[in-house]
């Protein structure tokens, strides 16, 4: 990384799942104090706060959190970037430190999403009203369901199907097996929302949402928060040997959006911006895909995980199906992917996700992942994508 290195000093996530007795601030507080405690620092040492939240984006969760855990007068950035919100919060703190405006900062992502159901997609107007063109398509009626689908399971189903059309080898069963892998991984993660193994047959027989995605192949809407304390190299050097020992290096921190390509405004192109982010991240970190010991990628749907094997260059172009079938992305394979259980079972409290996947990497790099530890893990990559689109990629490395 240009300039001095950045480090994750402390990191924390709440258990993901249903938290009916906790509000947004309770969850954000638990994660923030957890990260501060993990790093052995206090709120008054933080010089910048980035707070990610999507569903209550106008509420100023950052300042509300300060009013619970410490009004120290530091700048707060309330950020929102769809499902890349958490990664964006980390990026904001990283940029503040690289700009020399701070040398310690806190990034928090929090979401209350349990029971939210389908995201995006609109209800229809009453019959009988005069047809009146409106909006940018001059539409006389809602287009969701009439001109394709606007709901996430259907959009990402097409993303996976398009990959199959281009390269072949995909099937309903293949996508179900990807989901089976992640549900299997989740059984070892006590912080996952769902920790039940499911067979491909069970997954295929579950409720169909948008073919080929059945319910367990969709990310789980749930509550949760995650937070990270990011510090500069100079700040880390002032801290104790124990704090330095557990610090995890941020070797790359990248955010991209989708460059214009034919069809990108018809079906969101989640591929190009991910590939661009991955390329930049590998270059910044000075590592290649072959150096990675584990990957947490954005499996918002089983159909999405497949294309990101390719986009993150974990396999050769067009080789994602063979890569999966080789067993590589299983936790005992050559390139473990989503050993946390992924969004399909760990859960997807939107703004928390991009920090929770850093928590997963850091926990393995520190050798503290218990039953699900990937032995000897030294380098990990975390990827999120927010439709619209924004892609965050971080590469973390174990302290030398």
């Amino acid at each position, binding site marked *: 990384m240009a300039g001095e290195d950045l480090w994750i000093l402390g990191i924390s996530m709440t258990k993901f799942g249903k938290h009916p007795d906790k509000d947004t601030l309770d969850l954000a507080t638990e994660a923030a104090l957890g990260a501060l405690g993990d790093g052995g620092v206090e709120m008054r040492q933080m010089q910048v706060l980035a707070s990610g939240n999507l569903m209550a984006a106008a509420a100023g969760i950052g300042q509300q959190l300060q009013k619970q855990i410490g009004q120290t007068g530091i700048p707060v950035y309330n950020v929102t970037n769809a499902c890349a919100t958490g990664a964006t919060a980390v990026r904001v703190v990283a940029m503040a430190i690289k700009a020399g405006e701070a040398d310690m900062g806190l990034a928090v992502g929090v979401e209350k999403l349990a029971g939210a159901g*389908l995201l995006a997609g609109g209800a229809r107007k009453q019959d009988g009203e005069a047809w009146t063109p409106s909006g940018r398509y001059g539409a006389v*009626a809602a287009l969701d*369901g009439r001109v394709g*689908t606007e709901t996430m*399971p259907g959009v990402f189903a097409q993303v996976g199907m398009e990959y199959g059309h281009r390269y072949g080898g995909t099937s309903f069963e293949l996508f179900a097996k990807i989901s089976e892998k992640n549900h299997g991984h989740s059984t070892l993660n006590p912080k996952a929302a769902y920790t039940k193994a499911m067979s491909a047959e069970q997954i295929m027989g579950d409720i169909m949402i948008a*073919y080929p995605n059945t319910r367990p192949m969709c990310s789980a809407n749930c509550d949760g928060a995650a937070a990270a304390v990011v510090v500069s190299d100079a700040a880390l050097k002032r801290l104790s040997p124990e704090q330095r020992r557990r610090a995890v290096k941020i070797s790359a921190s990248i955010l991209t959006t989708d460059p214009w390509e*034919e069809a990108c405004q018809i079906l969101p192109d989640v591929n190009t911006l991910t590939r661009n982010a991955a390329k930049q991240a590998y270059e910044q970190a000075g590592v290649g895909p072959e150096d990675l010991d584990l990957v947490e990628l954005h499996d918002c749907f089983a159909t999405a995980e497949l294309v990101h094997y390719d986009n993150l260059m974990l396999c050769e172009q067009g080789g994602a199906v063979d890569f999966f079938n080789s067993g590589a992305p299983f936790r005992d394979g050559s390139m473990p992917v989503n050993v946390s259980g992924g969004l399909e079972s760990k859960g997807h409290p939107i703004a928390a996700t991009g920090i929770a996947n850093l928590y997963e990497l850091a926990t393995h790099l520190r050798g503290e992942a218990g039953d699900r530890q990937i032995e000897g893990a030294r380098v990990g990559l975390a990827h999120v994508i927010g439709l619209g689109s924004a892609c965050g990629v971080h590469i973390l490395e174990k302290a030398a």
Partner: protein
Amino acid sequence: MSGTIPLVDYLVLDPEPHLVANECTNCKAKFFDRRNACASCGHTDFDKATVPTNGEVRAFTIVSFAAPGIPVPFVAAVVDCEGTSVRANLINVEPDAEHVQLGMKVHLATYPMGTDDEGTEAIAFGFEPLGG
């Protein structure tokens, strides 16, 4: 007043139904929405470009679960119309994975979607399999 009105302004009903894109005069990028400028090159001048009515299914999903009031199942797809990608439903085909296939050849088709209190009939579009 009675008559017909297209579901969207880029569906032209006469003389034969077809889609019309806003095409950047500089880089030829095509868009279906009202434009402020070109997302590809930044130019602000557009021409109307007729989109071929034949195409190939490049991606699809069969939506079984949608927002309230939207009839399911339906087939949502991306259709490649000789180089211009179009978002549309596939119609006049059984909505299951046996009848809908990637690479399937399809053709633009229209159907009435209802009449308002003034007697105007709205016409929607989709793509149907070519030659049964």
